[in-house]
């Protein structure tokens, strides 16, 4: 299997196959000896060069994080041979990206309007819950295609707030 992997936005090419003892693994062309077993759903025990890693996978409303020990990495993975075709990482993705509400709350301020340009990490709107404010940031550079949740709207976790293309 060949994968395009993005870890915190940095892309890697990963070639991975089961072998008799362990895995055949090439990362960006470099061969790496990997021993890995799934301890339970979402928990992987990985041994590389004798070093032991406990990797936990975490799904949130908006991302997938892989925790190596106590450090989280944002992970995105594409099978380049899938019918959907090649796509870049979230940050330079060509298709429209949905911004989802990470928690229930109320949209108190929309900072960027439809049709306006936006940078990676720029705040598009502010959602308030329990008297505290949370900035919703754009995952990619592009244009705000649509503001789905207007100022004053109540939202639930996972609701689409805006679309950036």
């Amino acid at each position, binding site marked *: *299997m060949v*994968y395009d*992997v993005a*870890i*915190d936005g*940095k892309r*890697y090419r*990963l070639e*991975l196959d*089961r072998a008799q003892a362990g*895995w055949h693994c090439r*990362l960006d062309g470099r061969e*790496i000896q*990997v021993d*890995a077993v*799934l301890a*339970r*759903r*979402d*928990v*992987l025990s*990985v041994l*590389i060069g004798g070093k032991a*890693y406990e*990797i*936990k*996978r*975490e*799904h*949130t*409303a*908006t*991302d*997938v*994080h*892989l*925790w*190596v*020990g*106590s*450090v989280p*990495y944002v*992970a*995105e*993975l*594409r*099978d380049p041979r*899938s*019918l959907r075709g090649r796509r870049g990482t*979230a940050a330079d993705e060509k298709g429209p990206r*949905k911004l*989802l509400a990470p*928690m229930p709350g109320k949209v108190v301020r929309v900072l960027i309007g439809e049709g306006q340009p936006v940078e990676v990490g720029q705040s598009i709107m502010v959602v308030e*819950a*329990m008297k*505290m404010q*949370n900035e919703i940031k754009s995952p990619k550079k592009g244009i705000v295609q649509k503001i789905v949740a207007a100022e004053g709207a109540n939202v*639930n*976790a*996972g609701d689409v707030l805006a679309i950036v293309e």
Partner: protein
Amino acid sequence: MRVIRACRELGIASVAVYSDVDRASSHVRKADEAYHIGPSAAAESYLNFTKILEVAKRSRADAIHPGYGFLSENAKFAQACRDAGVKFIGPSPASMEMMGSKTRARQEMEKAGVPFVPGTSRGLKSADEAEQVAVKIGYPVMLKAAAGGGGKGMRLVHTPGELKPALQSAQSEAERAFGDREVYIEKAIIDPRHIEMQVLADEHGNTVYLGERECSIQRRHQKVLEESPSPIVDPDMRRRMGEVAVRVAEAANYTNAGTVEFLVDQEKNFYFLEMNTRLQVEHPVTELITGLDLVHLQIRIAAGEKLPFRQEDVHIRGHAIECRIYAEDPDNNYFPSPGRITLLLSPSGPGIRRDSGMYEGWMVPIDYDPLLAKLIGYGTDRTQAISRLTRALHEYFVGGIKTNISLFRRILTDADFRAGKVDTGYLDRLLKSQPAPIRREDAEVAAIAAGIFAMLDPTSTVAGHGNLSPSSGNGAVDGVAASGWKRAARIEGLG
């Protein structure tokens, strides 16, 4: 859970009450009986006397343990229990009333000759009175709500010019938060420590103290980490504080478990602050260093038993430190972080106690205080307690929501904390400083793991297009959990 466990250990049947959002809470499953008492709004469920006493009647309960928060310090509720013939596990309504008003408590303490922070023992009648007292006791001064706690209705005033507006603002905040605009004034102690003493009294006139807890590490007046004993309290100071605490309890005719809070200045002078007329969240550290089970004792005292030991039988041994693990986002100003716990790896091992109701798959509600668990490290000395707790925090993983676990790693590795140099300003100072940069050296390992997960443990959104990222919110998360369970059964065979 704490009370249910104690009941089970004592052979007492337990009855849980729950609101709509708490139907899936651990305590409901672990109790012997459980009854629904209303919607999530506390006023319609956990604060509703009628509904709670109805359940007590229906289940023929002999006693009610009020826990912490909600009705635990509500004298009217304690009285309502008496009227209904149900034993309230705690002090009498009169004791609660006396200590419930901070000004009244100060007045009684004055009579009992207990040292307290200079200031007024009655609510301020006017801005003029406030100004006069402030000049007498000296700035800076603290304005505080008589009916309150948790920082509401509190204002620190440095100069005379700030006093009047601060008083007005404190009064209106107190009115909104507690329905009582009474505000009093105290000298503001610079960088005090918050040290509290556990007391226990039976209904036969015996009162003892069970050691102090250092609770200075607070964020916005909410305790975050507590330890026992306090790094600065020696046996002589403990005895003196303990004797004052007993005097306070006796002046209030106190029975059952309670905590006397003191402010301690940099010269180790201690001043009575207030008394909490209930069992406290941080009671485990006291249990670990004294070897006593406070909830067992509460129940037995309420059943009319005499204290089974005397003051001279109480010995402090070792050191315990507790972290309060909250569903909060440390990278976003500790914003509450409700949601479903998708993965839970819990620590254990030597010297580790974990009091927790959370479980994997639990939907943490936003409706109540987001305390998930208390993690306590216990050792023969403070250094060992710190290293055990640090180790346990390293093992702890809560996936799917944000928690403040990373905050404790910062505190426990901080030089001032390790030297025992803490005060109520400590955490604010620490949080203002730059955290140690996280070493992100394992991105390649993460990349490899991403591929291996996709092959060994694909999520439902992966199937078909190999994408680890969910394309929608809660729906996908639930779908993932479901397919994960089905696959786990198959994968176990692959090893």
